[in-house]
């Protein structure tokens, strides 16, 4: 295993590839009482079209299949679930599915070997029957309905549908009740065999454990496992930089105060001189100064009762950059005008940039108190950048006002989507 030193800290990540080709990332914290292990599959809700081997034809599965498989995975044999086995270890496992990946997690303080073996065993082997499909279909349908009853979740997807034309982020991760009803045993077997392979997965363990023992357990547990070798190609979706709808108003009885989202969609090439992690750091600093807790603009909006809540986010991917402003306001039309105007007048100062950099670096050190946070950070970095960031300090240190001003000038506001969620009378 390689030791990856984390710059300007005394911390080290261990990285290696197991005998079956599973990448593993370990961070040891001997002061911790627990360990946290996550087995991650680079298969999320947006991966519904893919090609297997040299076949020219793309195969497709219904929306929600990745999430459905996550549910099915906890079954290990007739009448035996992974939960039953983990319970005997005093462990309560969990899992979640995002747009991009599926994560299976175990948090515990004892029986490291048993927990790791069981995690590998239940995730890497599939047990599925038609009865199980029917049972999970009922449970997932109720989960989907719970999501439909959640105003924030509903608003999130409605905003995505205004932004994205082709990108599968416009669909709910769990799919709709209709999608769930279409998912078959065959679909589940197809996606499991296609995506649940060591080279498409990664294991992250953080906390108090011996990394060499962990690698030995991985190798021993998986030594007889066989996986298909044919190449899997996910279908790339070409997404236009134009939004789908410029303005959209949705009404719903459960909404108490109107909510307004404004999303700006722009080409990634506008910022081609900057790596993803740099660009994200700059954009977040600019947005913090203009819309965050230190912004005079936000303070004025709050004092004038124009907003109750205001936040922002940045998504950077290979083709696009999306900046989203999220607000809760009794006066949606007024807040739209104010936010749009502020976006045209964005600014940043050298002093503020330095203060934000200092605080961000403190956050990065602070994270090493928390075995879950470091595990989450490793997952996010692998998914976003393909590897862990060992030189975060240099990234922060490099941030400067000249580049911030350059990025600020490159922000393109012409493609925006405004989505309003109001109470239905």
């Amino acid at each position: 295993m390689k030791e990856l030193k984390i710059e300007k800290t005394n911390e080290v990540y261990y990285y290696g590839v197991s005998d079956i080709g599973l990448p593993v990332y370990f961070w040891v914290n001997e002061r911790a009482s627990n360990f946290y292990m996550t087995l991650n599959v680079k298969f999320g809700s947006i991966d519904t079209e893919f090609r297997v081997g040299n076949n020219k034809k793309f195969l497709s599965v219904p929306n929600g299949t990745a999430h459905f498989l996550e549910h099915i995975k906890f079954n290990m044999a007739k009448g035996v679930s992974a939960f039953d086995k983990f319970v005997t270890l005093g462990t309560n496992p969990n899992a979640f599915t995002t747009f991009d990946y599926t994560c299976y997690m175990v948090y515990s303080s004892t029986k490291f070997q048993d927990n790791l073996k069981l995690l590998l065993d239940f995730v890497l082997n599939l047990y599925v029957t038609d009865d199980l499909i029917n049972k999970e279909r009922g449970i997932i349908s109720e989960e989907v309905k719970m999501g439909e009853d959640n105003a924030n979740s509903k608003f999130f997807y409605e905003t995505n549908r205004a932004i994205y034309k082709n990108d599968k982020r416009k669909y709910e991760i769990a799919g709709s009740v209709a999608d769930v009803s279409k998912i078959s045993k065959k679909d589940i077997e197809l996606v499991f065999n296609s995506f649940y392979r060591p080279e498409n997965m990664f294991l992250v363990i953080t906390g108090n454990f011996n990394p060499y023992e962990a690698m030995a357990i991985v190798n021993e547990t998986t030594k007889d496992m066989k996986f298909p070798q044919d190449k899997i190609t996910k279908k790339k979706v070409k997404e236009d930089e134009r939004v789908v709808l410029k303005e959209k108003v949705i009404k719903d009885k459960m909404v108490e105060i109107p909510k307004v989202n404004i999303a700006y969609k722009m080409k990634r090439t506008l910022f081609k001189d900057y790596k993803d992690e740099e660009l994200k750091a700059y954009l977040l600093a600019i947005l913090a100064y203009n819309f965050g807790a230190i912004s005079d603009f936000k303070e004025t909006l709050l004092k004038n009762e124009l907003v109750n809540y205001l936040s922002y986010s940045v998504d950077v991917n290979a083709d696009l950059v999306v900046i989203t402003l999220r607000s809760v306001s009794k006066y949606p039309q007024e807040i739209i005008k104010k936010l749009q105007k502020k976006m045209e007048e964005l600014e940043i100062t050298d002093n503020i940039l330095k203060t934000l950099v200092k605080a961000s670096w403190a956050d990065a050190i602070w994270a090493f108190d928390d075995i879950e946070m470091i595990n989450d950070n490793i997952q996010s970095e692998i998914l976003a950048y393909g590897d862990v960031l060992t030189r975060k300090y240099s990234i922060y240190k490099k941030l400067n006002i000249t580049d911030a001003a350059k990025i600020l000038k490159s922000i393109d506001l012409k493609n925006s989507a405004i989505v309003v969620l109001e109470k239905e009378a």
Partner: protein
Amino acid sequence: MEYKLYHRDTYDVHTIKTDKFRSCRMEVIFRHEFKKEDVAIDNVLTDFLTLTSKIYPKRKDLVLKLEDLYGAFFYSSRERIGEMISNHFMIEFLNPEFCDAKNYLEEVIKLPLEMLLNPNFSNAEADSETLKVTKNQLIAEVKSELEDASYYSSREAMKKTFPHNPSALAKIEDISEISLINGSDVYNYYQKFINESLCDIYVMGNLEMDEVVNIIDKNITLDTIKSDNLNYFVTTKPKTKITNFSENGNFLQTRLVVVGSIYPTISNDMLYAYQVFLTILGGLGLSSKLQLYLREKNSLCYGVSLRSNRCDGVFNIYAGIEEKNIRKAINLIKKALKEMQEGVFTEEEITNAKNMIIAGSKMNEDSEERIITSYYLHDILGTDLVFEREKKIRKVTKEEIVRVSNLFKIASCYVLKGKKVKKSGE
């Protein structure tokens, strides 16, 4: 981990020295009697004190100061135990060894004391602009809670079943309770709050604690000596029969809440049997009785949650379920509880539950927040510290679990009926 108590006439400082974490935490806690009529103003005051002070009048001033203190966090929360409410003001900060700032420790310790003891009042009134923002945000929070079906249905079920229990009284229901509060109300309530509340300060981290306490002593000004005559346990007598409530909601999915009493009060010596009981019934992941019967065997719901509050003497069981399956779900919940009361559970389930509770307790050892909470509850309720629980959990017997189970009685079944919401727009 080294605990030390510094007793002062008007406050106590509890220090927990450890090199386990890179960050440090200071928690200033004010404890006082819970009163229904004070719920709104107590919320407003807590938020106001977190947003503004004489030295940091604007939120922006405070945030910039915190960023400058290497991204320290200052925030607040309110917790209720029985008929006691506590207001917690926390600052989390980086251990000074990672910072090259001068007087960092002194500045970071002084900050929450400045916020709490030098509030932004003029002419016996709270600063009107900050008060307006505080009220506005609180109103939005109260309204957004109503968008949460789980919150709404649980609150309504408790109100209808045990209307005088603090569990039913602790929430703001009418936003006029907030909007009518003025600057002088906040000022007057603050005087009462500061003069009548018991004050405890917990500090945790790898710090020179004598120096920390010295800084606190120099910067704290509390004059009134108080005694702890707060009531941490409420008696909730069982209902003689189960009442059914039902109403139409604005949500798509129907929600079921089964509410009940725990009587008599569960004492500390029954605490671990109580925890094992709760774990077998609802806390063993999908293997618990409730999950097994409602989700795994009958696919009635995505999940079922069991919440229990021994200090209030109440519990509730919540699930989102199709209306046609409500009767079946209620019967399965009753069956699960009855089995617990008749001892229909195995030694294996007991062992699994104990392992799960011990593992959960171990999780607390990696969190400064949870370690401080453990000391705080130890101080006020006499419960064991996180490090002392394992042996006692192992000793719990089946007879004790059955005895505890029989203190649980269902009082009502509340159904919030789902509705097809008509979609418009686009």
